[in-house]
């Protein structure tokens, strides 16, 4: 690459092209280390402070495991609903036309703009009598805060997608369902997976919207982030750190898996 660049009659690149000198890179690395990496290191350090045995004991207590199981299962459910409904909404926004579509399109991002504690309160105000402090309430809160991920991942792909292949399929007699399944869906899968993975990561860590509406009932509606918060409130810092590290590992695995998936799809495409 650099050899090729040098052989071409164009201005030689400065040390590291354009505006990114050593200073920029140094400041950036320092900034990220201070803000993100240092606290993460402190967290892991604290969780292991009293040895691996204590860590394991805290992370595998019955209540912690129950909270984690509920968190992962409900997040999977939320991810599945999002994958379907997010795709449907993206489809309607990209292909359908009706009055007020632009308004609806703008409102999709509302969950990103609305504070999570307000989201929880809003759902409680409307559905509170029916579902407050049940698993359904947690599901609803998580669906609210994760709504934009799949929609915003799939929508641009649908807009870019050429309709010629679909037209060809129709003209060859394929039904709408067949065309969607065989032509459209394969093109959307990478975007659906990315959006769904982000929604899953967000759901696993969500706190603000579930803290009011879940009622935080151990072995029932208690999610891991709220459990960690309660541990911290009762001065069990090491316990909170252990659960936090488990949550951190889950997030990291999802992110890494997503990157791996995206680089594979990118290489194939």
């Amino acid at each position, binding site marked *: 690459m650099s050899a090729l660049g040098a052989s071409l009659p164009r*201005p030689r690149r*400065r040390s590291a*092209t*354009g*505006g*990114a*000198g050593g200073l*920029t*890179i140094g400041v*950036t*690395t320092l*900034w*990220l280390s201070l*803000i*993100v990496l*240092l*606290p993460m290191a*402190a*967290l892991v350090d604290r969780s292991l402070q009293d040895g691996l045995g204590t860590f394991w004991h805290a992370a595998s207590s019955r209540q912690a495991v129950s909270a984690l199981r509920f968190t992962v299962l409900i997040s999977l459910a939320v991810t599945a609903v999002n994958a379907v409904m997010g795709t*449907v*909404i993206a*489809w309607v*926004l990209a*292909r*359908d036309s*009706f009055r007020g579509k632009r308004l*609806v399109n*703008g*409102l999709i*991002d*509302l969950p*990103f*703009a609305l*504070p*999570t*504690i*307000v989201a929880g*309160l*809003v759902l409680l*105000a409307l*559905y509170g009598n029916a579902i407050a402090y049940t698993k359904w309430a947690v599901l*609803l809160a998580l669906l*609210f805060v994760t*709504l934009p991920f799949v929609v915003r991942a799939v929508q641009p792909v649908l807009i870019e997608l050429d*309709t010629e292949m679909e037209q060809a399929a129709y003209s060859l007699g394929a039904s*709408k369902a067949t065309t969607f399944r065989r032509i459209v869906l394969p093109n959307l899968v990478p975007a659906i997976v990315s959006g769904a993975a982000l929604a899953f990561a967000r759901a696993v*860590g*969500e*706190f*603000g919207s579930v*803290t009011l509406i879940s009622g935080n009932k151990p072995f029932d509606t208690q999610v891991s*982030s709220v459990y*960690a*918060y309660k541990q*911290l409130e009762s001065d069990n*810092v090491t316990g909170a*750190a252990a659960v*936090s590290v488990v*949550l951190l590992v889950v*997030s990291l695995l999802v992110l890494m898996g997503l990157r791996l998936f995206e680089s594979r799809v990118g290489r194939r495409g």
Partner: protein
Amino acid sequence: MAEARGGGFGRIGLRVAALAYLAALLIVPVGVIAYKTFAPGLGHVIESVTTPAAIHAFWLTIEVTAIAVPLNAALGVLTAVALVRGRLPGKRVIEAVIDLPFAISPVVIGLALLLVYGREGWFGDTLASAGVQILFSFPGIVLATVFVTLPFVVREVAPVLREVGDEQEQAAATLGASRLQAFRLITLPSIRWGLVYGVVLSVARAIGEFGAVSVVSGKVAGETETLTLLVEKRFNNFDLSGAYAASTLLALIALLTLGFMVLVNRRRELA
């Protein structure tokens, strides 16, 4: 946009399904909270959002945002430039680190900060002997907000930088422009809408942050209580109408932000 022929029922069905889902999840609930807020009368609402605690919470939220967002904007642009233009090893690791705040639970973020700057944290003793208090005071809230809003500007600016390429910057350099001039006259104008969008997203998140701030702020009324914490406190104290009023204020800010996002996006598409 070619429309598929026939299957009108299917199209209408999908439209109804999508709109019903959005209505049940988003639109009706937010509408109901506005209704419940104003049902006791406007005077009551104004009274409830102008108590000393509420006014303090409002300004605290604004101050924290006013510090955290510009800081992240400046360093976010720098990070994006380093990522896209620099030839540094471990770019993927850096990208993963930048995405972390999106993926980590806010509670985990708060706890991690506690374990660095808190009384029992890594720097606890040093800070205490220097007489500096970070946690349970203003700097801690700013720190938590900086953490949670870190990715937005980088994530919005980096793709734009990648797309515009560096040919113009190089041309400027061959014509004798300094690095700073090239940045100010070439790079900055080309990334400005991405930057603005990232800033808007950061502002929304900064104002709305709850979990991380909840852990590090100490929630002292009139001192370290932000607007979102006020909502929670009022709710827990059975002051429902007060919680609704503060929520509606936050929702209004969110709607303003949303309007701004739509506007910026439209400008960006035109640009």
